[in-house]
């Protein structure tokens, strides 16, 4: 998108409601999959990016639109979280109320940790999966294991998506940095420990 045009009706609830119109001819509708933010968070069979998963919780990737920062999610339940947002928001990855209320990128790479709240320093994906499993229990639904036990590693996301980025200036968890051991750090997060 290069040039953009100003339209006062595009601001929040600006402008008046459109005139009511009669529904047209019945379109052929394909049921849309539920939109969710990452691997292992799908509630239904076939509801992952490839549409081939066999069970709840086993999907490979997000159906929500990929994005790389806070406030960029399209709608309810489509925002990641972890690197920005207050303590309450950071406890609810993939569980935001509305558009632009997510506080970080989608999908959620396994290396991401929370920066505030009870989950500070711990895995965001595991928190998202915990919320998902609680939802499935409430719905009395069985679910399977995620393809990666602790969420999709960043390198894997890059390999399948072509590129992957989440916001921030403090550095990529996989980059060369002092004497870091990305695998060891990832293992700690995966075990639910603080880094």
């Amino acid at each position, binding site marked *: *998108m*290069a*040039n*953009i*045009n*100003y339209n*006062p009706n*595009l*601001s*929040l609830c*600006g402008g008046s409601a459109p005139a009511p119109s009669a529904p047209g001819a019945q379109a052929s509708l394909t049921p849309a999959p539920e939109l969710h933010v990452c691997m292992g968070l799908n509630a239904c069979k076939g509801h992952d990016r490839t549409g081939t998963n066999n069970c709840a919780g086993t999907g490979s990737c997000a159906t929500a639109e990929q994005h790389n*920062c*806070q*406030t*960029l999610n399209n709608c309810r339940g489509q925002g990641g979280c972890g*690197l*920005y*947002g*207050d*303590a*309450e*928001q950071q406890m609810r990855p993939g569980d935001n109320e509305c558009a*632009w*209320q997510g506080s970080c990128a989608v999908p959620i790479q396994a290396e991401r*940790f929370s*920066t*505030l*709240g009870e989950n*500070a*320093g711990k895995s965001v994906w595991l928190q998202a999966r915990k919320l998902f499993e609680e939802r499935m229990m409430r719905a009395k639904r069985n679910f399977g294991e995620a393809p990666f036990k602790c969420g999709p590693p960043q390198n894997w996301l890059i390999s399948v998506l072509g590129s992957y980025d989440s*916001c*921030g*200036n*403090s*550095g*990529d*968890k996989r*980059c*060369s*940095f*002092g*004497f*870091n*051991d*990305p695998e060891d*750090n990832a293992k700690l997060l995966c075990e639910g420990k603080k*880094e």
Partner: protein
Amino acid sequence: MIRTNFFSKEGEVTPANLGEAIQQAIEIEIATIPVYLYTYYSINRVPDQDAISGSLSQALVQKGVPLARANATALELSAELMVYANKAGALIMSVAIEEMLHMALSSNLKQALAGLPELIGKSPSKWPACLPGHEPEFPINRDKLSLDQLMTFLKIESPDPLPDKKLLKAPIPYKTIGLFYQMIKDCIANNDLRYNTHSPQLLPGKGYYAQNNVDTLYYDKKHKPHFTNAADSGDLLYVQDRDSALHAITCIVDQGEGLPGAPGFKDGKVDCSKIIPDDYDDFDKKELSHFEKFARIYCSYEQLTKKFNALGIGAIDISSYFVANVAKNPLTAHYPAEIRPVSDFLNGVYTYLFVMVENCYKQSGNTQYEIFMFGVHKSMIFILNSVCGDIMKLTYKNSEDGKTYNVAPTFEDYPFGLISSPKSQLIDLYNAAVAVYPTISYLGQRVQDLPDVPL
């Protein structure tokens, strides 16, 4: 900078001039924001460790150090430098976001006691700038990270008065920011004031403020994250009575200067000795005051410089490894014609942030929430941060000294006109910028999404 007139008897805050004094406090907070942000963006927080290590190792081998030892030394020192660059950035950003908190707390205070806070057009327009009313006056530059720049930061946050030279007439004079706030505190504590609880404020519990984010953390040598702000050090606060007003001011002063008793300069120099409990601003002693954060960056800079220069491979300026080559106090007008539209757009976003925050004091409920969450957050965290990164990829030759510099964000107030809405003008600025710098085209939709807020 549109300077508010602060009419007052010297050194006295009374119920009659309390509103002017609080507005002065707001402008003091605003004056620090472009300074800290400018230095923050001059830092490459993730320099190329392999390149640093490789060049060090090569120089050591040329000096006769055995290869294995040279490699080990180079690896260790390059890792220390990586941590330093990453940490310096985190600490400066952690202070910058607390200055934004202080601006909001002071604005809440003014809304409760004296009416609408004025935020638009209050960034310094002349550089070097100064803190309104500070005695003695001292020059504040937008400059890259250096010991001199850190010394300026320390003067801003000093808990002790600086050596005095002259008195000012216009703004209410003060020796330290803490002492200035103390005058306001005394006025609030000693007078029976009426608190307006009907006008909107920026309140806690709505997700407006977060103490930490990915930019306020740094990684140690093993790439383990460390958070520089503590969750209990401060938050937004509803100013509705004397106690809450005093609490808001205490938060501002403690975060800036530390607890009462925190030492400042020692014999005019930075005190690099051990940290004491009063240097913290929170109950759990996890967050240092602004002054002490800057002191730690200063002291580590000196220590690391000594280590590098002890290698015997010539004089090394460690900043050359991780600080961008940006000019001191650049203005958009200094940039070549093909770069100015990008700088204007950046300044438009920067100014629109103040337009939106000021508007939040006129709006309540969901409208305020949407302006703040979708306008301020999206502009600050995504759009402004992205443009700052993109603009610094450009270089220009300075016509004054003939040297080549990276283009830097100038954080000037953009003069939005009254004929059309600021957002429509911001879109015009974006269109002009993307025409000369298509790299920023990914921001178009995000600019389009911003709320339409009037001046």
